[in-house]
């Protein structure tokens, strides 16, 4: 039974004084404000209930949890009655039994009594409560008013709503409101006619529902049920693992029948998601068993030839031979690898080890190059560690939340829901984004300030905010004095106070009214706890790293570091992008962010691995491609990345791939990059492997194998066999041995082990002798680098600016239903929400170009051109257009230029000057 064993009925109340009371003769202690229901549950006393759940505020509607209190009147509901000192409570008396039976009899009088053929049979709280209450007959005759025969709403591709099974406990409605914050459901009508309704009654699909699954999770009956359970029956076993989509890193129970995953259910014990989920993690796992999956290695002589299925031995031997041949002919530096930030820590670790130990160079990179490499650079320089400072729970303590270049409700939905919950509790919100994202305004959310800046001017705007803070006396002087470098701060203060950084001075450049900037700066600086969350709208710019450092400067200057509710929080794109960086899949860094030039670090690895490591930085991914076109770089091992769709300046990428002699792609599907590959190695999905992922809050969580690898090998095994074939000895018999090696060689991970993870569920690094249970909040007493360092953040405008021919700026992002290049989500039913990339264009710009909603438009940048359908929308400001890059057909990245962050070469995806016109022959 899913609920009652561990759900205590109402949320915990923490921090208050403890009171002592008697329940059923037992002395019970509970914090003030705790419900009687919860206090009883904690004491092992189970009071029947249907509308209560510890994930929802008490509601008091089902009237099953009634109790009697000595000296009190009537029969109060224990879910809404708080404990009180000296209270004497009885949960089971003859009258209570009668009342509960009376109420349950009413429930059953309006419920189809078809338990044996119901999809929730055996997993139904109503059934369970009926048994507990002991109803023996239903005296109301069959002819009465009923909800029987109401139509089933099957519009959502993943779950169905069967109104006749609904008991109107409103758990779904409350979950949608309180947990997800979509407010997509209501109860329409009153009294007996009251019925759960999505939107204005148009069904779930047409409503504001984001298909997060919270309602399905909350439903005590089969009223809201996964379609797969309806089809397949209840699962029989479960494996707890970690989601493979975004950087939130939600914990899920994979529920299976045999080797068939039936459903994924968010795990209430998962600390990153606390039982919540989004449409991707919860439902969009069908790609793992999609027929497109490749089940055996493929090899071909040239990319014009058809693929030839081969065995693992042959494929591995072929790759090893090719790489050794290339190195012999073109030199050791002529090959490299791209590790996947979707693979496990252990797998990434092995890839960089393969490169450093077997390839003998540092040519290893990962997709953080194109997303969060500026974060690593910027936070390392200012704070001393390449990671976010907080845990997700920290947001519950923030009073002012500043979201910069991030769209968490679409891209990090589970954290987005948590953030919105905090906003509903009264936190103030500043959004810095060229586009009106869902956070700017929506149900019960409204940003106090939306600084809709021109794309590419982040640094100018943040400098202006810092200018206000410095010149208006808003600096937290004591924090700066105690925690930061005196000289770098003094330099920065003088630099930023210069009038050229004043909001008024940059108004024309940023397009944001100076007064707005001043007000927002004051709002941020004067909060008790102010937190910054940012995303790729910060990093994917020509000044990505500078922007990160400007953010760090702001946080340090206002003392917003080192306690709950504050901090600098990068929202990581991929599930394991933090881990991939931690694991040293960077050309300049060994695991644990130690530069390859550091002799001590290098020596440790050299000793353990028995090789010599190059002290020079290796090639970054874009430079591998550039050098390929130059003819020096000839072979690449690409694990789980679709370079040919995700990289900027795609024509250049395609030419580079074509120029190589051995391109090895390891992936689930024959992706775009595989068109240019000579060898394809079928990888394993997250359901098919063991290991660990590290999320955006540095939380290391276990990935556990639920089904065997479709192609026979987990990805780490492929890498290990490749290393062996290249005559570098690797002989791990289990992944825990890899983690043990990581722990031995990496100071931040020295306390991490599979044993610890089993014990704690998950752990946030640094985890070592000083922090054996991990570190939820960093830089508490001192910065990792000692004193915080202020970096001068000169605003250098991007060269990518509108001109006479290209008058608009294109910026890109994600939508909720799709994920990145769509390799996974396009192979699920998520297409019902988003089946194509569209170009959002402001009505003014549309009108000026004669573009109507739905028109096909031609978009041309200086790199290339493509066509999309137009969506006329005020979400973008005039002069700015927006699209996504989820579908290969859109070729969005053909448009993106070769511009990149000066420090990390993270591509400037967010700013492309484009010309947009109605495509010839297009019709609305």
């Amino acid at each position, binding site marked *: 039974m899913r609920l009652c064993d561990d759900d205590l009925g109402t949320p915990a109340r923490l921090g208050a004084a403890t009171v002592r009371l008697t329940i059923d003769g037992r002395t019970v202690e509970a914090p003030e404000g705790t419900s009687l229901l919860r206090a009883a549950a904690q004491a092992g006393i189970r009071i029947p209930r249907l509308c209560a759940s510890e994930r929802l505020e*008490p*509601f*008091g*509607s*089902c*009237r099953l949890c*009634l109790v009697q209190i000595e000296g009190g009147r*009537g*029969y109060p*509901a224990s*879910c*809404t*009655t*708080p404990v009180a000192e000296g209270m004497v409570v009885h949960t089971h008396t003859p*009258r209570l039994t*009668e*009342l509960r039976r*009376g*109420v349950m009899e*009413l*429930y059953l*009088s*309006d419920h189809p009594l078809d338990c044996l053929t119901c999809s929730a049979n055996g997993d139904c709280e109503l059934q369970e409560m009926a048994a507990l209450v002991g109803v023996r007959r239903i*005296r*109301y*005759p069959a*002819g*009465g*008013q009923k909800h029987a025969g109401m139509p089933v709403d099957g519009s959502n591709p993943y779950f169905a709503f069967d109104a006749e099974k609904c*008991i*109107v406990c*409103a758990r779904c409605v409350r979950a949608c409101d309180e947990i997800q914050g979509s407010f997509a459901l*209501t*109860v329409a*009508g*009153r*009294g*007996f*006619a*009251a019925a759960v309704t999505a939107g204005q009654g148009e069904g779930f699909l047409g409503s504001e529902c984001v298909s997060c699954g919270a309602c399905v999770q909350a439903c005590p009956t089969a009223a809201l049920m996964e379609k797969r359970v309806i089809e397949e029956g209840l699962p029989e076993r479960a494996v707890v693992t970690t989601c493979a989509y975004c950087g939130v890193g939600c914990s899920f129970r994979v529920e299976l029948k045999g080797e068939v995953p039936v459903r994924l259910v968010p795990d209430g014990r998962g600390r990153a998601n606390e039982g919540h989920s989004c449409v991707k993690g919860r439902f969009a796992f069908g790609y793992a068993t999609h027929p497109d999956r490749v089940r055996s290695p493929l090899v071909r002589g040239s990319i014009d030839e058809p693929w030839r299925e081969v065995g693992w031995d042959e494929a591995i031997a072929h790759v090893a031979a090719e790489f050794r041949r290339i190195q012999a002919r073109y030199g050791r530096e002529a090959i490299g690898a791209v590790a996947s930030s979707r693979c496990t820590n252990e797998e990434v670790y092995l890839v960089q080890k393969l490169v450093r130990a077997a390839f003998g160079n540092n040519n290893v990179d990962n997709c953080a190059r194109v997303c969060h490499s500026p974060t690593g650079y910027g936070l390392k320089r200012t704070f001393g560690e390449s990671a976010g400072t907080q845990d997700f729970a920290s947001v519950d303590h923030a009073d002012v939340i500043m979201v910069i270049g991030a769209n968490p409700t679409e891209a990090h939905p589970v954290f987005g829901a948590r953030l919105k919950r905090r906003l509903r509790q009264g936190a103030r919100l500043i959004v810095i984004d060229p586009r009106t994202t869902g956070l700017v305004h929506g149900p019960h959310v409204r940003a106090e300030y939306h600084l809709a800046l021109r794309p590419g001017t982040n640094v100018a705007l943040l400098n202006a905010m810092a200018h206000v803070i410095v010149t208006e006396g808003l600096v937290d002087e004591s924090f700066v004095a105690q925690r930061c470098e005196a000289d770098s701060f003094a330099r920065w203060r003088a630099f930023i106070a210069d009038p050229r950084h004043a909001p008024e001075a940059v108004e024309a450049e940023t397009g944001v009214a100076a007064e707005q900037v001043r007000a927002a700066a004051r709002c941020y600086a004067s909060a008790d706890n102010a937190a910054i969350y940012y995303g790729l709208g910060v990093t994917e710019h020509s000044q990505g790293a500078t922007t990160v450092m400007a953010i760090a400067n702001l946080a340090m200057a206002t003392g917003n570091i080192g306690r709950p509710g504050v901090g600098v929080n990068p929202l990581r794109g991929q599930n394991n992008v933090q881990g991939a960086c931690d694991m040293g899949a960077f050309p300049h860094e060994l695991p644990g962010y130690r530069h390859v030039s550091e002799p001590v670090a290098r020596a440790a690895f050299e000793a353990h691995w028995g090789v010599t490591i190059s002290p020079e930085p290796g090639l970054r991914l874009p430079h591998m491609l550039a050098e390929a076109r130059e003819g020096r770089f000839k072979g690449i091992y690409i694990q789980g990345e679709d370079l040919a769709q995700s990289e900027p300046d795609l024509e250049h990428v395609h030419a580079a791939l074509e120029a190589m002699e051995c391109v090895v792609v390891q992936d689930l599907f024959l992706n775009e990059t595989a068109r240019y590959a000579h060898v394809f190695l079928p990888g394993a999905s997250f359901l098919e492997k063991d290991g660990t992922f590290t999320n955006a809050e540095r939380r290391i969580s276990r990935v556990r194998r639920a089904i065997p690898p479709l192609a026979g090998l987990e990805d780490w095994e492929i890498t290990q066999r490749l290393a062996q074939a290249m005559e570098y000895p690797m002989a791990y018999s289990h992944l825990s041995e890899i983690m043990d090696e990581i722990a031995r060689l990496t100071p931040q991970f020295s306390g991490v082990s599979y044993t610890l993870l089993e014990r704690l569920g998950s752990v946030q690094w640094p985890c070592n002798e000083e922090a054996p249970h991990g570190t939820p909040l960093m830089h508490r007493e001192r910065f990792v680098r000692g004193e915080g360092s202020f970096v001068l953040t000169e605003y250098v405008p991007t060269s990518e600016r509108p001109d006479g021919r290209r008058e608009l700026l294109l910026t890109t992002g994600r939508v909720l239903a799709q994920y990145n290049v769509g390799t996974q989500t396009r192979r699920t039913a998520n297409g019902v929400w988003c089946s194509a990339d569209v170009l959002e264009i402001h009505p003014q710009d549309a009108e000026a170009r004669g573009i109507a909603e739905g028109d096909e438009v031609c978009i041309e940048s200086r790199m290339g051109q493509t066509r999309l359908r137009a969506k006329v929308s005020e979400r973008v400001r005039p002069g700015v257009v927006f699209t996504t890059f989820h579908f290969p057909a859109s070729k969005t990245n053909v448009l993106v230029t070769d511009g990149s962050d000066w420090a990390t070469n993270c591509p400037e995806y967010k700013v492309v000057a484009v010309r947009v016109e109605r495509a010839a022959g297009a019709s609305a």
Partner: protein
Amino acid sequence: MNPARETPTVVYVPRDAAALAVGADAVAEAIRAEAARRALPLQLKRTGSRGLFWLEPLVEVATPQGRIAYGPVQPEDVPGLFAAGFLAGAAHPLRLGVPAALPYLQGQDRLLHARLGVIEPDRVDDYLATGGYRALEQALALEPPELVAQVQRSGLRGRGGAAFPAGIKWDTVRRAPGPTKYVVCNADEGDSGTFADRMVLEGDPFSLIEGMTIAALAVGATQGYVYLRVEYPHAYRTLTAAIELARARGYLGPDVCGSGRAFELEVRVGAGAYVCGEETALLESLEGKRGLVRAKPPLPALAGLFGRPTLVHNVLTLATVPVILAEGAEAYRDYGCGNSRGTLSLQLAGNVRRPGLVEKAFGMSLGELLYDYGGGTASGRPIRAVQVGGPLGAYLSPSHFDLPLDYETFAAAGAMLGHGGIVVFDDTVDMARMARHAFAFCADESCGKCTPCRIGSVRGREALERVLAGGPVEAELALVRELAATMRDASLCALGGMTAYPVLGALEHFPEDFTARARSGRPVQG
């Protein structure tokens, strides 16, 4: 004679909705027309109603002997009245004499309702002339704790039905921490058989405004809301006009009477949901939500409107506050009996010869009210049943007519005074149908949140329909009794919880209407 130089005669015609419903506007128009035809100078004043509804439209004329009443007046009576010299208070078959001397009024203790039918409700000066705003003046000189203490000493209990001691509520709100607090007036007078709130709103709105202002001073609130039912459009117009006038004269606004204290007042209109008369559902509705009943705790006094401490009272309770301050808490307390102090606004309705408003100190017997005031049934048949306290009040039989009207005695008898509404039925009433009606009412008005009310009301209605159709009575009645008790003990709020009272009352006191049915074969209707 030059009519222009002559002082016009003042004629009073009520504009209370109940008077309008029986033609008061037409009568006023007939009087105006007749006076014009006769070129007689006349000033028409539109007042509230004194609450003697069998006499409405009740027209009064100002004469040197005082106001002389005529009623019930129909438009066709008007020429005859003029001909008889009614402007001078002359004799006429409709002449009733000095209103205060009418036995119906003479026996009453009109403290709260003294101005009804007397003053023009939209004239601040009329209010001031009748002692209005004296209480506020006093209150402004008092510290909040002393104000609260006065209310406590008066023994005032909430007049909306629950009869909770007002002073305790005030003290809770006053002590609750927080910069923002609210005073909310529950003017969602939905109980059938009650109309006293409406009469105050239409006939003496400043008394409510003054009472709310004093309450706000006492508890530290700066914003008040009146939640008024949409079924009372006349009350809405009068009250909103009065609020504007009070604001214009400085009795409301950022600086009440130059005291430096702010109090704003706004009227919000309900939308036809009876359950919003329940205070927590009302607060939800004021917040712009579905009117679902909230679980308590938290008490609204601590976490009410928008989560802030909120003082919620009904119209009569708040309008009594100026009386208490003006007359003195002890003077008010001297009325009544036991723990029921002061006066009660009783409303006689249904099949009664003299329907109307009777303000009396607690303690009169039910029979006295029904016969001495009500005069028995309108149909002339014997009284068979009365429902006291609205649609959720118990049905009582003549065996209860000795019960004194006070909270405790009624509660002990398994009944309640509620909002003071009393509906009279003669011996043609079918109590099984009234019991079915009670369930049907609950089913129609249930907010749908809690299960006993949501499903139970429908199942109860169905069971009684089966009884009415001649079904197997004993089993059904046992089920109904148990269901009613389940609803009573397990429902979230009084709507589901008190539906048991009329049902069980009917079953207990009028069993023959249920058991004899199968034999008599009486038809089912409605």
